[in-house]
């Protein structure tokens, strides 16, 4: 049964990923991305990573996809129903894609995967939390600082020019 679910989820993920890549409409690509994310979240669940699956939904669907849609809507005419992304440079990109595909499939086939025979579906949240707070505390904090920096940068960039000008003397004084 789990195999069947796996196959179904894989088909969902791959097909919707193809839609993302192949569709000429940005919006349809975004919707395809939604189903890709959902398929991947399902795969996480199958891999007994429940927390990761929920995070996938929360961050990618609730955050990033909404941002993508917002960006598409804001940077185009809203009244224009046909948002399209025309394809350029088909031949080089095809070569790159095929090469990448070959590399990855080769890697997937030749790697000796460590197979866990008896998968136990156990909650991972507590373990994850403990690990993040002990063993991986430093990377966790570094990532937090990086994200904070990005946040501050975004806030500064989106400030209107006049506010920026008003802000500058203070900053220079501070330096």
């Amino acid at each position, binding site marked *: 049964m789990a195999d069947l679910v796996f196959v179904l989820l894989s088909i969902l993920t791959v097909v919707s990923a193809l839609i993302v890549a192949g569709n000429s409409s940005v919006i349809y690509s975004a919707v395809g991305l939604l189903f890709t994310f959902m398929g991947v979240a399902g795969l996480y669940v199958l891999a007994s990573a429940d927390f990761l699956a929920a995070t996938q939904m929360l961050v990618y669907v609730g955050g990033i996809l909404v941002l993508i849609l917002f960006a598409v809507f*804001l940077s185009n*005419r*809203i*009244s224009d129903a046909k948002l399209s992304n025309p394809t350029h440079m088909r031949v080089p990109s095809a070569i790159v894609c095929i090469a990448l595909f070959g590399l990855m499939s080769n890697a997937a086939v030749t790697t000796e995967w460590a197979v866990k025979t008896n998968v136990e579906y156990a909650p991972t949240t507590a373990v994850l939390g403990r690990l993040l707070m002990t063993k991986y505390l430093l990377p966790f904090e570094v990532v937090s600082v990086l994200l904070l920096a990005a946040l501050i940068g975004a806030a500064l960039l989106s*400030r*209107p*020019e*006049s*506010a920026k000008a008003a802000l500058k003397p203070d900053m220079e004084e501070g330096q």
Partner: protein
Amino acid sequence: MSATIDQTALPTQEMTLNMGPQHPSTHGVLRVILRTDGEVVVNARPDVGYLHRGLQKIAERNPYGSFMPFTDRLDYLASMNCNAAYAWAVEKLAGIEVPERAEFIRVIVCELNRISSHLISFGSFTADMGAFTPFLYAIRERERVNDLFEEICGNRLTYNYCRIGGVSADLTDGWLGKVKEFLDYFEPKIDEYNNLITYNKIFVGRLANVAVVSPEDCVAYGLTGPNLRGSGVAFDLRKDEPYSVYPKFDFNVCVGRGEKGQLGDCFDRYIVRIDEMRESVKILRQAIAMIPDGPVIAKVPRVFKPAAGECYFRAENPRGETGFYLISDGSANPYRCQIRTPSYVTMNIFEKVTEGLMIADIVAVIGSFDIILPEIDR
């Protein structure tokens, strides 16, 4: 706190939005063409004329008396005031002496109608702001005024009660007592409205500092009525150019005080209407106490032909100054009837004050100006 976004920072494409003529909060068939930058309005141009009925031409084609029912349709929320204003205009034109009781009755019904008109203004304004319950409370109170009017004139909306030279019928027995009862019931309700919505933080936040109209602009653009008084100009025709029996009453002219923000914002215009309801109650109590006995209509010939001449009469209606300019050529019909309606004049300033507001504020501005479409388009 009014939301203006620096336009120079991020050049974006503007969007043209068509608000109306079918839109729930344009109070009728007003059409506003919005050019917006996201939620921020760059320009809002009112497009009026969807309700044009040619009332001024109709006036020329009807005898003086027969035009009375059409004044009901001028401002259907304050039909009594329009009726009375027209009657006073014709009487001024023809020099008719109106019995004092008729004048008192006119003032009583006018002030009652002012209350009911302000109630609708208050109610629909709160409904525009998203609070639907005060609207129904306002309608409930207005229903009682309508009952009172129905008893004396037989209709609930288009009263057609005034006649040239008086009013169509005397008050029914015990009617004044009922009015008193209503006033006793209604006065505490005003405080209730204030507690329920007027001083609500969200409501104040929506209105304060939105669409500020300076007193100079008000005068320059010819705003009248509560919209003018909201900007702090204490001008009320009932006081400053008294007509009928208004000089006999003691009442205050309510002006905006810039209570929650700048002087002349939406909140000031709103609160002036609330205060005016109290003043109307005051006038009504005095009028009920002072009303004399006597006839209610002067002797006016059945085929009424005023002497050639012209006159302009203006009255303080709930929405501002309603003026009738009549020219008589000695025949039974007016030669020309020009109607000055406050809402139409108010619309002139609309484009100016809405610049840089948000879409939700447009609704607040329309509500705070308390425009009524049949008056704009006549």
